[in-house]
Every structure is written in C-alpha cells, then in structure tokens.
C-alpha cells in the first residue's frame, strides 16, 4: 500500500491538533458553570480587538469576580469581519452572550426589540457602584455620564424609534494626527505641533525637504483612502461653515444631511460653490505630501508605514492609539488636525472657527440580551463596568477617552479630548451618501500630486455627485416610508396599551409626534424631487 506523503500526514496531525485544542478550550470555558451550578457565568462580546481594550476588560472582569466570587465573567472578542454573522446566529439560536456590544448600524429596531432588554428605567436610578463617590451617589446612572447620554439620532445606545435605551457605553473616540516626534524634531529642529493649517502644510514641506536632502524614504503623511478622508472631513467642513448656515432650512444652526441634499437638488449649492471649491483646494495643498499610491492602500497599510518610520504622520481615530503607542519604537505625539482662522486670506472666507467636537457621543455600549440566563447579574456587571472606578481603569489601560464624569483623562490621551469650544460644521461633500464617499475617493487623485487641481476635480466629478445626491434623496424617502409604515402598527399597539392610563406625553403621543416630524421631512424631500427634476 502506498504511504501518504509526509506533508499530508503533517497537515492531518495539525488539523487534529487544532480541533482538539479548540474543543478543549470550549470545554474548559464552559466547565465551571457545568460543574458548579451555583456559579453564574456572564459572557460579554465585542469586536474591539485593538490592543489595550481586551486587557482593560479583563482587569475589570477580574475586579468584579474578586468582589463576587460566585460569578465568572468571560470576555469574547470577535473580529469585526465575523461579527455580523456571528451575532445573528447567536441571537437567532438563543445562544448569544449575556451582554453584547451595540451599534446603530448593526442592530435594527426589530433586532433590539426582539433580542435585547431595554434599560431605560435602570439608567434613571443611581449606579450602586458609585455609592462611594460623593458627587455621583445620588445621581442617576444616565447623568453619571459626561454627556448624560443625550438621545441623539444615530447614537448606539438609544433607539429613536423604540424610544428606549438599550446600551450603557464605556468609551469615546476622536480623530487625531499621530506623529513621529523624532522625525518632526529632525525636520523642524524642535518638537512643535502646528496650530494652523498653513503650519501643518509647512510641517509637511519641512519633512519632505529633509527626506530629500538626507535621501531617506520618509513621506510626511501616511496615506490610504481611509486616512485621507479623516483629513478632508475637517477641512471641507471648516471651509464652508457660514454657507452651511445659509442652507439650514429649519434655522436651528445645524445643516442636516437631508437639508443639504434638498438644497443641492434645489440648486442652492454645488461643487462649484466658492466655499466648497475652497475646501477642495485645501487637498491640493497637502495632497502632494501623501505616500505614493495612497489611493490603493488601506488603513492597515497606512498604519504599517507609520509604525515602520516610513511616514512621519498618520491621521486616524483614537481607537488606534493603543496599537500605535504599544507598537511604535519611537516617541509618538498627537494633535488635532488644524484648520484655518476667519482671517485666513486663502481658505478662511467662509470659516467660523475651530470645529466643535462637543457632540462626540459615547461608544462601546453593551446591551443585555433577552436570552441571558442571569439578566440581573448582567445588569449588575454593566453597572460595575461603567462605574467611575472601572471607567478610569478602562481608560487608563486602553487609552480610550473616559465617558463618566470626573474620570481623569490619562496623560497619554490628553490630546484626544474632544474640542468643546468650537463651531458648527460646514458642507462635507462626502457625508451625503455612501456613494458620494465612493465618488470622492474615485476622483480624489485629481487633488493630489503635482498636477492637483480643484477645478479639474469639479469638472470631472460634478456629474457623478449630481447623480448620487439625487439618488440618495430618493433612497431616503423610500427608507423613511418603510419606517413610517411600521410605526402605523406600532402606534396602534401603544394606543391600546396606554389609553387607559392617559395618552398625553405617553409613548403613543411621543411616537405619533416623531412620526409626524419624519413624515414631514419625507414629503418635503418628495416635493423637492418633483419640483426640481434632473436636467435631461
């Protein structure tokens, strides 16, 4: 008989070994609960696999288990790529963990209603784990948060359709420019961060000059489509703040996505609007300092360029801070992307001032699944996790910004703090639809390199933006119609449940009011589409 080749045997042994190892881990994981039924096992799942986060959660879980010896807390970090399928399978099969990280783009209203328990009433009670904090012991759990969990549209912890809180958040993130302090010092002669956009461009130029002189393979900016949009977001917005106020239909000093689209379709602004054109010109100014081929690279590539010292700066979210700080073998600094002042003769004509980051909302919220075997214990752990002491520990280890009042920002994270003394944002052409983002990325190369030209970008890309903006407004009306339809049934449910106890200010009333507002927005969009047809 012919023997199988050695490589085949090796592969089979490896597979068998991997299987046995995995099976063993699973058995060990479930062991204590099976052996000792008096032990309560709480599992919490998230996709934050960035360095530091898992370690922070582990330490907090250990603290909790020390306090409650009959409880075992298990952390499950699931990679983002597998998250959606993993979560759906777990929820549908009734085997989801007790606590699950929530995100508004991952969890539909139907999913929240079916699989998660609302925690609104608990958030209005004090958090018992803050009992030793004189200023928090009598404050509700919700108000112990820095931003008091304001129920804004789009936040991950509250459903504006269900009018319930489903999650308690743990952290906050902002976007910053991370820089190699040695390279900056070598270029400028000192470790100094730019205060204005011109200084930022000058810093890029100085780094490039030094690299050319020293024949070093260093580019000023680590580049990828992801990181570049983090730069353009603030520049597009800062260059058009006063224009945004003129497009604000409802006059509440906030240009919503729908108002932006409606006024685009009505012809009130375009890429050629001087303020929008100015925003595009800012990319001309820094685009030449990006690593070559940046538009084909992804965020991991950009991170690698920076960590290997091949790029002096990297613009990214502070969620990457833990990874950067732990992996870089050079000193790292961080600063907010500087924009321009009102008196900037080139870019500041439609600028109000620095962009406010005050409404940066809290993230990494965990919700309690309805299938939890120990919902009371899960709630208790959630309270512990978001107490002042635990949040301080989480922030210190992960370097992510704290969300609970009075928690000191770790020294290393001070540059990440949201700017609260700032102004409203302007027109960011990429924000109006997913497709607009794709169109921007498709044509962005026209704004970088030695032949960069905002006018060429406008000439080539305007048609595509016109198409995607109009389509987005139409799409919004279709999506809105579906939620409005559903609310007709939901409101009927609340009517029957609440009419005996009074409808005024009850959920029936609040949801009907919400429906009226959303329906007005939808019909306004439809009126616009009908009154301003696309040019033939």
């Amino acid at each position: 008989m012919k023997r199988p080749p050695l490589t085949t045997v090796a592969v089979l042994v490896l597979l068998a070994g991997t299987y046995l190892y995995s099976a063993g881990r699973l058995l060990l994981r479930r062991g204590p609960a099976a052996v000792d039924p008096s032990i309560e096992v709480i599992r919490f799942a998230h996709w934050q696999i960035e360095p530091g986060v898992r370690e922070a959660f582990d330490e907090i879980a250990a603290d909790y288990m020390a306090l409650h010896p009959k409880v075992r807390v298990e952390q499950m970090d699931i990679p983002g790529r597998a998250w959606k399928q993993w979560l759906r399978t777990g929820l549908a099969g009734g085997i989801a963990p007790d606590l699950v990280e929530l995100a508004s783009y991952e969890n539909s209203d139907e999913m929240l209603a079916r699989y998660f328990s609302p925690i609104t009433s608990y958030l209005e009670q004090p958090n018992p784990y803050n009992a030793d904090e004189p200023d928090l012991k009598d404050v509700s759990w919700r108000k112990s948060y820095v931003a008091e969990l304001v129920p804004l549209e789009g936040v991950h912890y509250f459903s504006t359709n269900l009018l319930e809180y489903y999650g308690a958040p743990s952290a906050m993130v902002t976007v910053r420019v991370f820089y190699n302090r040695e390279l900056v010092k070598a270029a400028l002669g000192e470790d100094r961060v730019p205060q204005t956009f011109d200084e930022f461009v000058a810093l890029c130029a100085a780094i490039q000059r030094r690299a050319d002189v020293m024949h070093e393979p260093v580019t000023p900016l680590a580049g990828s489509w992801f990181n570049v949009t983090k730069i353009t977001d603030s520049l597009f917005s800062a260059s058009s703040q006063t224009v945004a106020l003129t497009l604000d239909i409802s006059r509440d000093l906030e240009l919503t996505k729908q108002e932006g689209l409606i006024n685009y379709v009505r012809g009130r602004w375009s890429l050629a609007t001087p303020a929008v054109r100015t925003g595009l010109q800012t990319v001309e100014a820094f685009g030449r300092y990006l690593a070559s081929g940046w538009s084909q690279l992804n965020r991991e590539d950009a991170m690698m360029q920076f960590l290997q010292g091949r790029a002096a700066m990297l613009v990214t979210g502070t969620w990457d801070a833990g990874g950067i700080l732990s992996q870089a073998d050079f000193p790292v600094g961080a600063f907010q992307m500087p924009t321009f002042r009102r008196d900037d003769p080139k870019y500041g004509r439609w600028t109000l001032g620095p962009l406010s980051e005050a409404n940066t909302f809290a993230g990494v919220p965990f919700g309690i699944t309805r299938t939890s075997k120990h919902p009371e214990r899960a709630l208790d752990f959630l309270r512990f996790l978001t107490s002042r002491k635990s949040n301080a520990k989480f922030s210190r280890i992960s370097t992510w910004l704290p969300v609970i009042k009075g928690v000191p920002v770790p020294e290393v994270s001070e540059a990440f703090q949201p700017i609260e003394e700032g102004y409203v944002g302007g027109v960011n052409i990429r924000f109006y639809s997913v497709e607009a983002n794709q169109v921007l990325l498709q044509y962005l190369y026209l704004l970088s390199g030695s032949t960069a030209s905002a006018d060429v970008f406008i000439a080539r890309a305007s048609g595509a933006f016109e198409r995607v903006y109009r389509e987005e407004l139409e799409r919004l009306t279709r999506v809105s119609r579906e939620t409005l339809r559903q609310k007709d049934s939901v409101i009927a449910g609340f009517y029957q449940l609440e009419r005996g106890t009074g409808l005024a200010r009850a959920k029936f009333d609040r949801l009907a009011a919400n429906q009226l507002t959303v329906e007005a927005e939808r019909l306004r969009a439809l009126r616009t589409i009908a009154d301003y047809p696309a040019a033939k």
Partner: protein
Amino acid sequence: MVVGVLGAARAAHAAPAPDDGWQNLAGYLFRDAHGAFSRAPIAGDRPRALGVAASLLNEPPVSPGKVADVEAQLRQLMADNSADDPAIYARYLLARIAHLHRPAETAEVEAAYRAVVTAAPAHPLAQLAAGKLALVLLYQRPDLPVPERIAGAAALAPVAGAEQLPETASSYYRALAEAALYYNVLDDRVLGWLQRADAIGTHDIMTATSLRIQLAEVARALGHREEALGYYRQYLATAVRTDSRYLTAKEHMTDLAKETK
C-alpha cells in the same frame, strides 16, 4: 425591582399575557403580534380584530395582497359598528393605508383624513389625522399656490394642535413653521407657530433645545431684537454641554446685541 422588570421580560416568553399582542405590536414584533391575535377566538372581540388587522399590515413579508386583506378587515369592523373605538381606529388606519401603504390619489387621501377628523373631532386619532392632513396640504398639493397650502394646513390647528396630545401638537406647529421656511416664507406667523410649539413643550431634549435656537434665529431675522436676545439667553442657559451649536448661537447673540447699540 431589578429582578422584577428584567425577570418579567423573560417570563413574557413563557406565559402569554392578555396584552401580549399589543405589547408585541408596540415592540415592532409584527409576526408575533399577529400570531398572538390570531390564536384566540375572535368572534365579537373587536379590539382583537383590530389587532389582527394592525399586525397583518406590517407582518413580513409585506405584500399588496396583505394590505388589501387588511383594508377588507378594517372595512368590516366599520360596517359592524361605525362609532366605537375600534371603528374610529379602523377609519384612521384606512386613511393611513391610502396615504402610505398603497398607491392612491391625493384626493382620496385627503378625503380619508377628513373623514376621520369629522367623525369624532375630539378623538386623539382625529388629532393624528389632522396633522397628517396638514402635511398633505403643505407638500402634496402642487396645484395650490404656496400661501394657500400654508393657510390650509394652519386652519387645522384647532384639531391638529389640540393639547390632549401635547407632543403631537408641538410637532404639528413645528411642521407648519418648517414648511413655511422651506417655501422661503418668513413672517410673524412662523414665529407664532414656533412659540406655540415651545409653549406646549416637548419631552425630547434635543427638540426643545433646537426650538429655542429656531425661535432666536427667526425672531432675529424678523427684527424682533429683544425677543431674539431673550431666546438666545434661554438657549444658552439650558443647552446641554454636548450641543455643538453653543458657540455659534452665543456669537449670533453678541452680534445682535452690538448691532442695535
């Protein structure tokens, strides 16, 4: 307390309660709701019959056939007794179906809402219907000149703006003001509608905050200096820390104060 509420959520799965169908409906669980309403005998139970129709309307997969079935069920409810609460709700849902769930001419939609309003003007559902009718007039009657659209919608205020449903009334007045602003109409009526919305109030923190800014900005645009300054001050005194508009509003107030010195 903790055990009570979270425990109740679990218990609800095990032992169906009488309100199960409505609870499911309120929680967007349309299939579960339809199952709960359909399981029990229906003869003579008009609220339950309404529940069957209201849940079928959105039971996935939604289809034109189901919508037609719902319409037939609602018409039957009205035929059996046209004046009780299930009948009033059936009439309202029929108007909603014509407006949003199947294609219909604007005239049919308008007539359907008017039928709800005239059948029982003091009923909460008449208020809901009047609010929707206002939107039809504002945005779905291009045959009317803009002033007539606005006037027609504003004329519904006695019903649509009734204080029996304060949140809905506040939303209606805001909708009037924002429609006028959309059509570039800026006069004292707009300020009046916003003031009415503010006076009625809302539990929604962000809406209440935005209203104060709208009042200040509209009053400023109309030249009502003192009123505008007052609204700016009120906003600045009550705005939450996470409101990114704070500095912009403060600057507008300062500019206004300087302008007239």
